[in-house]
């Protein structure tokens, strides 16, 4: 049984006003335990709305969200409980920090769960270690941290609830390359060490290709494409239709192939690098 299953959900904003928008239109998919799934799409494609329906913050107008086979919107109580079971980390989460210390901020979620102080402390330590926040920073004010550290502190606040699924909305937006790599490393560590199930919303094809088992492409609230990175990026035509593209290095490989080099497609940076290195060594056209 998939850990999370979404069945034909739809959601509209401002219905019955002049500004009505159908944000999500009949979307279905499922996520298996331990999977990492990326959601890509343009601004306004409904990604953020979709995420908020997965943890019960928004209730779909139609359709169901099943967590371990049970509808999370069955009662108000189950919807409230789903917020702890599906950890949702919003875009620019550092703007939501408010605690006097990082530890207090990270412990906000566990505290709301009604855990004992000892348990909260243990979880804060663990979450800080996962995101790579130095333990001496735990007693500092979150507003004194650097940009990347703030981001990781905020993500730790969600991880500390130990959700069954972790959803990260644009976790690397606005970070420098180093900060971006740190976040991606953290996600890889989470998967390797904790076997975590993760969903990532992103604009970046490169991130989606390098980190996820599966990719969902959203366009104007509809599921445009879905599948493994290989499947999704093989369908270049359909990506171009909505103004998206394959990762930059895949484009380079394809351009070289058009020039007569014998190269297969590659969707992750290390794979592409390997192919290019081999090509350089062999040095010949076929």
């Amino acid at each position, binding site marked *: 049984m998939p850990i999370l299953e979404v069945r034909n959900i739809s959601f509209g904003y401002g219905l019955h006003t002049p500004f009505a928008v159908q944000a999500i239109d009949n979307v279905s998919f499922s996520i298996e335990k331990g999977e990492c799934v990326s959601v890509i799409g343009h601004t306004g494609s409904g990604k953020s709305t979709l995420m*908020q329906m997965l943890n019960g913050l928004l209730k779909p107008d139609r359709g169901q969200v099943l967590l371990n086979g049970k509808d999370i919107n069955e009662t108000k109580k189950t919807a409230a409980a789903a*917020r702890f079971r599906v950890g949702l980390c*919003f875009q620019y*989460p550092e703007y*939501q920090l*408010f605690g006097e210390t990082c530890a207090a901020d990270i412990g*906000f979620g566990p505290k709301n769960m009604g855990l004992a102080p000892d348990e909260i402390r243990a979880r804060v330590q663990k979450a800080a270690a996962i995101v790579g926040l130095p333990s001496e920073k735990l007693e500092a004010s979150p507003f004194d941290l650097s940009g990347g550290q703030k981001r990781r502190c905020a993500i730790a*606040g*969600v991880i500390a609830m130990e959700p069954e699924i972790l959803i990260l909305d644009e976790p690397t937006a606005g970070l420098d390359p180093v900060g971006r790599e740190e976040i991606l490393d953290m996600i890889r560590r989470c998967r390797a060490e904790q076997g975590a199930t993760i969903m990532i919303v992103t604009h970046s094809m490169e991130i989606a290709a390098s980190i996820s088992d599966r990719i969902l492409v959203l366009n104007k609230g509809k599921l445009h494409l879905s599948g493994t990175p290989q499947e999704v990026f093989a369908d270049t035509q359909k990506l171009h239709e909505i103004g998206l593209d394959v990762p930059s290095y895949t484009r380079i490989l394809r351009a070289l192939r058009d020039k007569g080099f014998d190269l297969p497609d590659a969707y992750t940076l290390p794979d592409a690098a390997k192919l290019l290195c081999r090509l350089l060594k062999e040095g010949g056209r076929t």
Partner: protein
Amino acid sequence: MIKDITIGQFFPGESFVHKLDPRAKILILIVFIVVLFICRNFFSLLLMLVFSFTAVILSRISPKMIWKSMKAIVVLVIFTALLQLIYNDKGDVWWKPFPNGSFVITSGGVYGAIFLIVRIITLILLTSLLTYTTSSTLLTDAIEKLLTPLKWLHVPVHSLAMMMTIALRFIPTLLREIDIIMSAQKARGAKLDTGNLGQRIKALVSVFVPLLVSSFRRAAELATAMECRCYTDGAHRTRLRRMRLGWRDWLAGGVLLLVSATAVFTSFYPIGSTLIFQAVIS
């Protein structure tokens, strides 16, 4: 919840009311309100109601939006009407629940209550129409223009208008920000919508601290951006759109003057059928 707030919301359009000069609209509203409170009988009140209804129809704003702004004042209207009903003891006694007459419903109370309800509804109709049909930029431009005489008294009219523009501009931005922060904290289990009153108030700290921080950040960013464009206070800028009074403004103003004059006149010199309610209201 937050999305239901329509105060200060602008609905773009091309109607007669949209095309009126904002200065004319503000002046018309002021005259209208003054006359509305001079009105002393149902005939004159009815005239004013017809005037504002006509304006609503001409604006092509959907009745649903108008109803939304009405909903906000329902409690106020009912409350004032009840007070009228209870404390007004003029006119004939219509209902006497207690034999000793300590509490009576009189014709004056009933008419007074109806009169107040209609007066408030009329007032809200036209006032909400002003913000529905005028963008905040135009509105503050108009206010600045109307307040120009105060410049001679060294009142910083331009700065005040700029402050107002910025404040109005940031209402939707901050509302959206509150919405996002609330969602984010709810995702961490903040009891903003589920807990009891005490828990909810406590949980608000997790919303207000980030909101305050981001407001200061935004203010600093805006100040930098304005300085980068060499903003100085009170420089004589020309405008993209110059406000000019057109035939619509003269027409609307003329109709208003006609209606007002009739309303005021009949309030003090009632003739014919308008006489009926004169005694009970005043």
